[in-house]
């Protein structure tokens, strides 16, 4: 009798404990099975709940109903850092290009993040499907059929052709009028002509083989399609102040308060999946700490930024109530120790190769902290480049000081001692001394100084290479410094490590020196070949070969890539992680997330 009584109490306690420990998982009111969709049945239950038990408030019921009927609901407030992310601050047509952030304008396609080890992926926006000829000299895009501009004008292939022609016609620096020239006109340089066989098909004829044309359209900065019926009459586009912002995107321009706020609203006539959010307000916080405070307080629901929050600050946010953090692998910058291949001692390939075993990645990552992952490849990042990484070149630059010493000795370097400290004598008999300028992209979060600290331990302490100076130089003269020092650091954003095409970074191109002053004839030739190769298998083969050359020649030693941390209000909206990890930018993210709290409905 008493036994059962105690058992009962214990069970109650356990249930209570569980109830306390399990965080009240944010969910959409009425969505009982947690699939973020309120089905008709669930809605019926919710209505009954509301009427009888009063468990759901009227506002929550309204949210459930909007979800169930797929009607836009509520207001999302996004924090950005800088007024250039607000809507009319800068002309979209010339500065921002493709609308990864714009929400209003769309391009033909957008790039997605590949699955690890998987192929490249694109997502169609205004193009449903696309294909290229075998020689990649013509690209055909089949457009969506039901798209209309925000003012109701139907979208057709003529708009795409107009966009091309408009950029082409405004690429003449001698044209009269200060605003006639568009910097972005260079993007279509490789297009010979554009044809529209019908209203929903566009054919681009290229001047030369363009296997990555969709990529050109999608990124860096990419091109959005502009409405012919509006821009046709504008002669000076780069000084024209657009106040209507007519696009085809999931959100239409609402209003702006200069320098601080702008708003877009869900577009009823959108051709794709309509967004669940009715309004997206962008609010400018210039300071990262202010952004974080705003997120904590609930003033904003998401902090938008190219590389996310700084890792330490994201870490501190992790346990904050109602806040979720999405960690995007290699979403930030990737850092390398780079050589200037025509400055002694980096002129000696064996020297570079030897040092590739003298970079203690684990230790750098430990110093950098949260979110740093050592790079095991020769340049491309597996999380971004997918199947383009040559597996045979992985792990070649392992940390092994003994191996480094052996290779240095073989290359004619001589490790001696002086006053109890190791000194490396070069083949010329003089001590090896290097200078490392600090500046540029690698100085984010003082990463460069951390790398220097680790290099000093190994290079100075064990290999006898004296690091004489690490001057802090201005970004604007960094290139000049690179040219006269053997070693520097680089910290390019991930997108420079995501495609074999980006290996042209190491080509001595007709444009002149690359950052590494690297000049390998086979490599240069292979890049040229790659640029005119359309066949995917052939391209992969060339790509692998290129990476083998890099492994052999070591123009740079990859150190680590930084994960990006994005912070959002998980108690107000659901569905963040999938969209953030999948890529495609804010336009996709804000179209996919769903309101989960009636609070956001009351704001609007």
């Amino acid at each position: 009798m008493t036994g059962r009584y105690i058992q009962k109490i214990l069970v109650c306690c356990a249930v209570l404990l569980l109830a306390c420990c399990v965080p009240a998982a944010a969910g959409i009111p009425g969505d009982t099975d947690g699939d973020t969709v309120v089905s008709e049945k669930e809605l019926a239950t919710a209505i009954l709940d509301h009427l009888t038990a009063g468990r759901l408030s009227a506002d929550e019921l309204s949210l459930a109903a909007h979800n169930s009927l797929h009607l836009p609901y509520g207001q999302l407030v996004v924090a950005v850092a800088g007024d250039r992310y607000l809507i009319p601050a800068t002309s979209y047509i010339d500065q921002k290009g493709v609308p990864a952030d714009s929400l209003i304008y769309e391009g033909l396609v957008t790039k997605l993040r590949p699955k690890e080890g998987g192929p490249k992926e694109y997502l169609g926006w205004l193009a449903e499907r696309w294909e290229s000829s075998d020689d990649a000299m013509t690209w055909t895009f089949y457009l969506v059929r039901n798209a209309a501009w925000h003012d109701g004008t139907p979208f057709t292939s003529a708009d795409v052709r107009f966009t091309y022609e408009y950029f082409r016609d405004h690429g003449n620096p001698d044209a009269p009028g200060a605003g006639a020239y568009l910097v972005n006109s260079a993007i279509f340089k490789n297009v010979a002509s554009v044809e529209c066989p019908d209203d929903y098909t566009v054919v681009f004829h290229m001047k030369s083989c363009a296997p990555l044309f969709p990529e050109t359209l999608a990124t860096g900065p990419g091109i959005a399609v502009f409405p012919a019926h509006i821009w046709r009459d504008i002669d000076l586009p780069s000084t024209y102040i657009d106040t209507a912002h007519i696009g085809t995107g999931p959100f239409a321009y609402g209003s702006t308060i200069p320098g601080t706020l702008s708003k877009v609203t869900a577009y009823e006539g959108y051709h794709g999946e309509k967004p669940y959010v009715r309004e997206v307000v962008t609010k400018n916080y210039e300071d990262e700490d202010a952004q974080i405070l705003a997120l904590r307080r609930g003033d904003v629901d998401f902090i938008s930024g190219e590389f996310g929050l700084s890792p330490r600050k994201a870490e501190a946010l992790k346990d904050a109530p109602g806040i979720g953090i999405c960690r995007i692998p290699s979403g930030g910058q990737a850092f390398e120790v780079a050589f200037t291949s025509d400055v002694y001692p980096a002129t000696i390939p064996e020297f570079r190769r030897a040092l590739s075993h003298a970079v203690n990645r684990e230790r750098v990552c430990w110093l950098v902290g949260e979110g740093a992952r050592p790079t095991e490849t020769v340049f491309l990042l597996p999380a971004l480049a997918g199947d383009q990484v040559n597996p045979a070149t992985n792990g070649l630059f392992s940390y092994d000081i003994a191996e480094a010493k052996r290779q240095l000795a073989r290359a004619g370097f001589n490790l001696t001692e002086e006053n109890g400290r190791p000194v490396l004598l070069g083949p010329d008999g003089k001590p090896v001394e290097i200078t490392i300028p600090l500046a540029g992209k690698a100085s984010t979060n003082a990463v460069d100084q951390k790398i220097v600290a680790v290099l000093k331990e190994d290079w100075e302490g064990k290999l006898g290479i004296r690091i004489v100076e690490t001057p802090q130089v201005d970004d604007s003269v960094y290139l000049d410094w690179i040219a006269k020092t053997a070693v520097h650091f680089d910290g390019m954003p991930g997108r420079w490590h995501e495609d074999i095409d980006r290996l042209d970074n190491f080509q001595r191109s007709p444009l002149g020196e690359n950052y590494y002053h690297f000049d390998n004839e086979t490599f240069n030739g292979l890049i040229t070949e790659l640029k005119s190769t359309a066949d995917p298998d052939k391209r992969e083969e060339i790509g692998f070969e290129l990476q083998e050359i890099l492994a052999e020649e070591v123009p740079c030693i990859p150190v680590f890539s930084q994960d990006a941390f994005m912070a959002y209000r998980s108690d107000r909206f659901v569905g963040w992680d999938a969209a953030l990890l999948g890529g495609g930018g804010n336009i996709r993210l804000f179209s996919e997330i769903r309101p989960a709290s009636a609070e956001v409905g009351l704001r609007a």
Partner: protein
Amino acid sequence: MNGIYLLKRLITSFAAFCIAVTIMFALLRLMPGDYITMYLEAIYRYAPPDVVEAFNHVYGLDRPILEQYVIYLLDAFRGNWGYSFIYKVPVLTVIGERLVWTLILLLPATILATLAGIGIGAYSGWRRGSKTDIALLNSMIIIRAIPSYWLALMILIIFAYYLNLFPLGGYVDTGALTTGIDPLDVANHAVLPVLTLFLFSVTGTYYLMRSSMLMTAGEDYITTARAKGLDELMILRKHALKNAMLPMVTLITFECAGMITGSIFVETIFSWPGLGMLTYKALAVRDLPLLQGILLIDTLFVIAANIAADLIYPLVDPRVQVGDDA
């Protein structure tokens, strides 16, 4: 006599303006790095030379430097200050917009700081050595010693975040997107930045006023006034205050001129779109036309403040007579 003086003053000011403008022009061209290369390198890693060339050609940056200088001077006087590279709108429009917001913060902050600085500085100097004086002096030293960035951030964290009394930044609430800008809402947003700016500048005014008051309080005419049997308040009002205020005229005019350069820290922490941040951004990306415009406006303000100080001084200090030498 005064007319001649004014004319002379205007001519020298004009000369100063021309010299400043020339120096600015030279300094801006000497700055390493340029807008288009930096912009393109951020996107493509390498700046395609043909695009750089085209851009420089469009904006006349490829012409001989002397020609650029002459065009710049002519344009400066014609009021044709060009378009900002980043904002793509006329430079004057951008500056005008930002100037309004800068002044909304700095006018009240400067006025309050000046009045308070003069008031408590005068009190402190008059009651030199008293408990209140020591307390005031020490708190001013402490405020002065706090790094401005940190002070601004602490004010934001305490008053906006923890006490939840004020918004966390910007100048209007999101509601303004539908209802338009409400002056009361702006005032609510301005409280913390104004408070911060006030704290930044009150110490300077306080120090100067206190030491000026110390000097004045030691003058014999103050002792005489006391010997005559005037009560303290009367001495302070009739004899001390006005004389101690003289050095403040210069300070105030220069603070007014300094106002338009804005305050980068406060504007960043409180996300207030003022001139300070604009200058910083323009400098960071080398937006030449915008920089030239901002510097021109700054020069004009400083020169105007100088003339104003010259004209105000004889009004407040009978010893100074303008144009006597003419």
